[in-house]
């Protein structure tokens, strides 16, 4: 069920990129896509009634959640941060040059 919600979020982001005409809204849509993936990735490692994967002498159980996806999510979040920061910086510079965020008016390149 939650998997489908992730898929839905992914599609929301994708449609946002395709339909919106504002640079900032496109960036937000990209972030939505990324977050849907993070959620999906975290869900892959989920186990019912499991404990966090911190191994101490006190916990001797065997049902840890899968720690690998969590590490992957962290890495992916850092990458997402870098991409988003760069995108926003570009958008601000574009605003300086063109005076607008509307992609219909930003079309110096053709064909």
């Amino acid at each position, binding site marked *: 069920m939650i998997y489908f919600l992730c898929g839905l979020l992914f599609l929301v982001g994708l449609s946002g990129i395709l339909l919106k005409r504002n640079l900032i809204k496109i960036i937000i849509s990209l972030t939505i896509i990324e977050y849907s993936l993070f959620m999906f990735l975290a869900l892959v490692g989920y186990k019912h009634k499991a404990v966090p994967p911190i191994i101490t*002498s006190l916990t001797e159980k065997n049902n840890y959640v899968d720690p690998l996806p969590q590490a992957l999510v962290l890495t992916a979040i850092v990458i997402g941060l870098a991409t988003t*920061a760069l995108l926003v*910086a570009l958008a601000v510079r574009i605003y300086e040059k063109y005076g607008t965020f509307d992609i219909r008016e930003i079309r110096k390149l053709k064909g």
Partner: protein
Amino acid sequence: MKGMTEIVKTISRLLAGLIFFYGIYIVVFGHLTPGGGFAGGIVISGAFILLIIANGIDEEKINRVREKAGFLESSGIFLFWVISTIGLCMGTFFFLNFLGKGKPLNIFSAGTVPLCNIAIGIEVSAALCSIVIAFMLVKKGDKK
């Protein structure tokens, strides 16, 4: 960029130190509790950004801060690079954990992991500071 009112300035001064030390705590204990270089670095940079926004900053100073942040950023990540390369230079593997592992749950344990955390903490805090400062600069240029 102008500062805010006196109330905000006073409170931010009080808070910034607290946030800064909390960030350092997260970085240093990164190998024992949840957190680590990235999360702690973000908290540390939060302290600086808070101060900058609350107290305001002028053109001349902002460039100085930016240069320092850039330098710290590169040196932090260079430190990380050095730590990871030492293992390679010792004739074995990249990222080798060449220090003793110590006892679990001690602060001096887990070999190179705390050192890496500290390097990442420096790098991330400086990087986030410079990102925010870069956006401030752009906003200023816009008003001209």
